[in-house]
């Protein structure tokens, strides 16, 4: 199928249902349980084959925890993570055992944020990129590994001759290409990218974004793209989900979300992004206050203490995430009734 097009009519590749991840909060000598941090609190969304879903929010909103639960890097507290395998079966990743997960690892891979921390400095490129081949595919022959790695390096724009070099010899952008090569060497179908360009320099960021777009088309990949940077998310995603204190507050196709946001938090988040144009200065409209502590969130809608449009109802009742317009979900009592400002294209 052509990559980059939306295939809503198809069955989702991944469907997350009521995902929860609570971290216990302990105190004192006996590590008494004094509360819970609801890092991810009842999050549901679906990702369709070939699309890029963006997950945005500020630090501590639970976007990385969500991504890690999907890959079972950490175990979710509750909820379902339904993944459609290449064979066509639907499995619940949340309940599988380590052994049952192993064949799935080939289909789901991760790209990490910091290319300086995610590559072992004592391994050369051949070992780094071919490690998944050894672990998952059980390939022992060096020739085959060399061949597969060379092919992969070429694909991400690195010269295969560099295969025997160590990570220290590469710049940040090149290292991120190595991380991408390692993630893609097993030909996964779902790639979870956690802030893949945040640690990179501005001039290199564009290269890596272009690479990710190109690889998605060539290998028909599906991306879950986690980022705090709205400009990057707008650039690369088909649909965007906005998170705030462990909950999804809005989910919509990218252009729709940016042109007509339905949740006041999304509006505030977009207004806070500095626009690289000195002629548009007054636009920056800061949101008052701070992100609440997820161990002790406010009543009702978590956003109400900072919301400009807050009503008494918002303090009492938590709004559910509902389809306000076709394909556009928002968790706000007044979705559609407020005239919120988006970003004009």
């Amino acid at each position, binding site marked *: 199928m052509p990559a980059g097009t939306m295939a809503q009519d198809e069955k989702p590749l991944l469907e997350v249902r009521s995902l929860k991840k609570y971290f216990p909060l302990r105190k004192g000598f006996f590590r008494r349980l004094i509360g819970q941090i609801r890092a991810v609190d009842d999050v549901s969304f679906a990702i369709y084959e070939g699309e890029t879903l963006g997950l945005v929010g500020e630090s501590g909103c639970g976007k990385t925890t969500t991504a890690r639960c999907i890959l079972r890097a950490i175990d979710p507290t509750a909820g379902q993570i339904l993944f459609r395998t290449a064979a066509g079966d639907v499995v619940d990743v949340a309940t599988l055992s380590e052994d049952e997960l192993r064949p799935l690892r080939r289909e789901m891979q991760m790209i990490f944020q910091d290319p300086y921390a995610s590559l072992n400095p004592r391994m050369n490129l051949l070992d780094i990129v071919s490690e998944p081949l050894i672990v998952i595919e059980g390939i022992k022959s060096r020739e085959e590994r060399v061949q597969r790695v060379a092919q992969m390096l070429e694909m991400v724009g690195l010269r295969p001759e560099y295969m025997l070099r160590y990570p220290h010899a590469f710049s940040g952008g090149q290292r991120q290409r190595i991380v991408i090569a390692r993630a893609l060497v097993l030909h996964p179908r779902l790639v979870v990218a956690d802030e893949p360009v945040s640690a990179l320099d501005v001039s290199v960021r564009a290269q890596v974004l272009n690479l990710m777009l190109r690889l998605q088309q060539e290998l028909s990949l599906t991306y879950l793209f986690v980022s*705090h940077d709205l400009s990057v998310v707008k650039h690369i995603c088909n649909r965007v989900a906005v998170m705030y204190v462990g909950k999804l507050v809005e989910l919509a196709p990218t252009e729709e979300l940016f042109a007509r946001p339905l949740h006041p938090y999304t509006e505030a988040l977009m207004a806070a992004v500095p626009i690289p144009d000195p002629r548009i200065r007054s636009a920056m409209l800061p949101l008052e206050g701070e992100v609440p502590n997820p161990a002790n969130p406010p009543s009702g809608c978590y956003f109400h203490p900072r919301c400009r449009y807050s009503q008494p109802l918002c303090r009492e009742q938590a709004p559910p995430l509902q389809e306000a317009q076709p394909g556009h979900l928002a968790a706000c009592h007044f979705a559609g009734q407020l005239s919120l400002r988006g970003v004009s294209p």
Partner: protein
Amino acid sequence: MQEQPILSVRDLRTYFFLDEGIVRAVDGVSFEVRAGEVVGLVGESGCGKSVTGKSILRIVEPPGRVVGGEILYRPQKVSIQKAQQANGFVDLAKLDPMGREMRSIRGAEIALIPQEPMASFSPVHTIGFQLVEAIRLHQAVDEEEARLIALERLREVGVPSPEQRFHAYSWELSGGLRQRAIIAMALACNPALLIADEPTTAIDVTTQAQVLNLLRSLQRERRMAIIFITHDLGVIAQVASYVVVMYLGCVVERGPVEDIFHSPQHPYTQALLRSIPSLRTPPRSFLPAIEGSIPHPFNRPPGCPFHPRCRSFMPGTCDRQQPTLQPVQGLQWASCFLLHPAPQGR
């Protein structure tokens, strides 16, 4: 007609003497700062923007050293011995970094907002203690007066209930509040020049917008000059009035913010502005990226530092000679042979 600058950096050179060789972190940087002006120093990692800021404050850690150039500063309140002055300017590059003069300027005249607020406060002293300490270092006031000034500063930067925060430790504050406390600390002695080194890099966008608005209003009220160091072109466009674009220790272009963003002259500035994804670019399109990566500081290319990545590279010129910063139009300067042909013969 421009007024006299309060700071004039001329051909500043700061090198790091490592076992592996010399890193020319800042290699001939020149710019000026006027009262009430926000000068943005922008560039990618390794371009020398932070080292430039540290050089002005003379806090470059060894093995780094200011090896050449002038940092002419016009003191606004601290009196410096006549011998050190020329036309009201002191050359900070000539002062002893540990000497009495430099210490009296640092904090009182030129203050710093450091990049990492967590690492900048002492974890074992309260915020109030550290503010009072800074105030009493530069002003002849007693404990109680200093406390009142400190509370006033905390209030100015929008810290809610400053009387309580005064007794808080830095690690008890949230990221946004800690950043405000750091700004209060920098403003403690009413500096004439503030050097803000990536003040919003470690915080979220909504908090960043708060901090940028705060800096903008403080700057307007006090007519303070700010050197704003960042890699974020969006932030620069929002706060700076004059922009200095750096690449590998050199200034490639500088000019008023409007000109830099709407009529960039240097190929690096042009390429950089094209390559950033913005809320206004069409989604899922390929960005015009700059090829290659920033060279390692030990392998600095000869000639123009940007030539290996430049689309308009002219063999025989750009890789042989280094262009110098020259005026292009109005207050805009650029250092490129496309704009100023290389001198004939060598």
